[in-house]
């Protein structure tokens, strides 16, 4: 009993001082076998005369077929899981209330007030704009912040900061492995092959970019009057930037829209949204009279805060979409 206890303690002590059993994933270089004459060579397990036990044969089989078997099983199970989920969801959709039926639960007092009183309560002719930027403006603020978060994160991971930090500060504090991988050279950036002589693209771009920009501005500015608004107008504006970058090269776009411009415009737009809507939330919740005029429904200057908010959202969306394109294709903006 005493022996047993001492042995356990010894094992524990070994483990504490680090003499424990070798971790499984440690790679130990194999010693080359001594070069013996053929007759004296020990019979290893691969020798012809060695009869493999069942376990060895199983291990050999696993070594050869294991990965294949695993991948087959894995993809089979994935397909099966997907099929189960797809059929479950289809069955659920079949059970849902019929689309467009007037007795549906979704047709209740909430929708009725949006449709019937949306115009004069928000001042916006476009009910959807009134809904997302006045009734439920907090959700839209969150949505814009989602875009801001994503853009800032991608900028951090792929933007100029990455290359510069790798160049001047390969941090000495790391666990060793991994940094070799990064220090092998500058990260491979997929630079666009920019062709100077693409006359057709340039010609079309010169003609269409002003039209696209005007279209985008119209969609953003008329967001409270007609279908459209900040999200769709911003997407149109970003296509103009992307087309310009492809036709004239990213350097030309950099001269007026770079990382700094992007950060400043997005932050400022979101800040204007936060402050103006924060004022509106505060006055609404505390039943204080708000100084923001609603205007006449149908005028260009109407809808209270909806017009400036649409412009803010448009700026954020345009910058973010162009930023994603530039960062993922060029690694820079």
């Amino acid at each position: 009993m005493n022996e047993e206890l001492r042995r356990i303690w010894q094992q524990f002590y070994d483990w504490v001082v680090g003499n424990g059993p070798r971790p499984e994933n440690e790679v130990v270089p194999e010693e080359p076998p001594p070069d013996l004459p053929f007759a004296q060579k020990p019979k290893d397990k691969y020798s012809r005369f060695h009869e493999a036990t069942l376990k060895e044969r199983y291990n050999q089989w696993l070594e050869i077929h294991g990965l294949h078997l695993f991948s087959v099983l894995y993809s089979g199970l994935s397909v099966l899981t997907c099929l189960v989920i797809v059929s479950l969801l289809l069955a659920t959709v079949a059970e849902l209330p019929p689309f467009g039926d007037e007795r549906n639960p979704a047709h209740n007092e909430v929708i009725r007030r949006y449709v019937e009183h949306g115009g004069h309560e928000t001042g916006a002719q476009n009910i959807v704009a009134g809904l997302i930027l006045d009734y439920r403006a907090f959700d839209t603020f969150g949505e814009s912040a989602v875009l801001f978060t994503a853009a800032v994160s991608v900028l951090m991971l792929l933007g100029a900061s990455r290359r510069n930090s790798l160049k001047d500060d390969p941090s000495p504090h790391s666990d060793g492995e991994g940094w070799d991988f990064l220090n092998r050279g500058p990260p491979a950036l997929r630079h666009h092959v920019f062709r100077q002589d693409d006359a057709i693209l340039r010609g079309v771009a010169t003609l269409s970019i002003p039209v696209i920009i005007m279209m985008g501005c119209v969609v953003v500015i008329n967001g409270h009057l007609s279908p459209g608004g900040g999200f769709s107008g911003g997407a149109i504006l970003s296509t103009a930037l992307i087309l310009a970058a492809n036709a004239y090269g990213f350097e030309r776009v950099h001269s007026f829209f770079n990382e700094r411009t992007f950060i400043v415009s997005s932050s400022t737009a979101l800040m204007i949204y936060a402050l103006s809507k924060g004022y509106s939330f505060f006055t609404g919740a505390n039943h204080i009279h708000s100084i923001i005029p609603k205007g006449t429904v149908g005028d260009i200057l109407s809808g209270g805060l909806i017009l400036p908010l649409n412009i803010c959202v448009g700026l954020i969306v345009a910058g973010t979409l162009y930023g994603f394109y530039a960062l993922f294709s060029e690694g820079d903006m």
Partner: protein
Amino acid sequence: MTDMLAYNIPFISIFVMMISAIITPLIPNKNRLPEKLSCIAIGFVGILSAYLLYSLTSGGQSLSFNFPMGHFPAPWGNELRAGPLEAVLSLVFSVAMLLSLTGNFSSTAEDIAPRRRNIFCVLVNLLTASLLALTYTNDLFTAYVFIEINTIAACAIVAVKEGPETARAALRYLVMSLVGSGLVMIAICLLYDLTGHLLMQNMHGAIQVLVATKSYMMPLTVSLALITAGLAIKSALYPFASWLPDAHGSSTNASSAILSGLVLKGHIFTIIKIFYRVFGLDVIHLLRMDTAIFILGLAAMIMGSVHALRQNNVKRMIAWSSVAQVGYIFLGVGLNTTAGIAAACLHIIVHACVKPMLFTAAGGLSNAAGHRKGLHALMGTFYVNVWAGLGLIAGACSMMGIPGFAGFASKLSLTLASFDNSAVVWALSALAASSVLNALYYVPAVIVVLTHNKDAHKNFTAHAPTLSYKVSMFVFLALNFYLGLFCVPLLRLITRGVNVL
């Protein structure tokens, strides 16, 4: 009725954090100004939350109030809601966030390139804002929007430390998290189609009608299963927790502390709100979701600890221990009683205070051992960084459930709450087994740290802990003892909060 300032605090807290996040890219990135600004903003929110808690509980019985976001009342506009439970949680979240930042102030500087640090602050501010919004929101779609912000920011603060490990971990986390978001989105669409509302108490009323008339039961069950599965993936319930050890083990210490202590808790509290406020406990029981959660919680308690036993890296060990602790919380939720949910909320608070302390302590110890994270390398580090050593010992005692430490209080209340359930034997044996397993990996770690090391001077870099580290660790330890010794008033407060939830 509460006074004017307390009434506006939920709105002010969220907007202070959002504005602080938006303004951070614009201020000069020098002298660690962005981080100081974030700390000030989070501290301010903490003070506001404490005032809100005081104001809600000082008037005899607990009150709760709704705060319309804008000029339109609730079913039409967005709405926030605050009660004692929300106030306690936002206080704990902001305090733990502040301590995670200040405690790891120097290790953040070592791990994150200077140009990335201001964006790290933006992300931390956005995370705090999203946690506050998830705590206060009364609207399911607002919850979804802030879950999205939370997801992206959480993945980005894993990847903020450069290296292939963190990139891989962040990618894995992102894929799993987005699957969870997708499930939550589908479930919210289904629920809206069935109820016609997004506001929690109106949804509750519509669901009660559906259940009473036994109509649309199958879509209702599917939507409940999808929303639970989606949020369970995000809060790392056991079979969905494979992303957690990579993400929490490889990132910088501040990120690990924030992710483990707080980000998981935001999603768990959303599940609690959906169970309690949207569906109602009787409907949850009718649809058998409580049993599923209960079984998964039991599995998580055992399997998280079993995986933790096999780790050599101290941070990965603590990360797997988080999986086990999330299992405790889900056990409380799965009991499906007010007492069970109150115990789960107490465990959320305890874990939000203890786990950042453990990560901060592990960071300090591995820093003292020359940035090595293997358990063997930490031998004798207690004598280099006493504060970190004390933090590890107190955290380990708390996780094992030694009386006097924070974990004891929540484990005791979980045990007491489980006596109401018919599966009490399973709950008690899993609690006992999990505590023993916790001891099996935390006690050796403590012994290793306390063992004298003869060649310490050769390996160790003499990093004296900074003042901010000492102060944060002191506050962590004080919180730990406070929660362990004086948990009864807190539990009473939480129960009152759950009752008005």
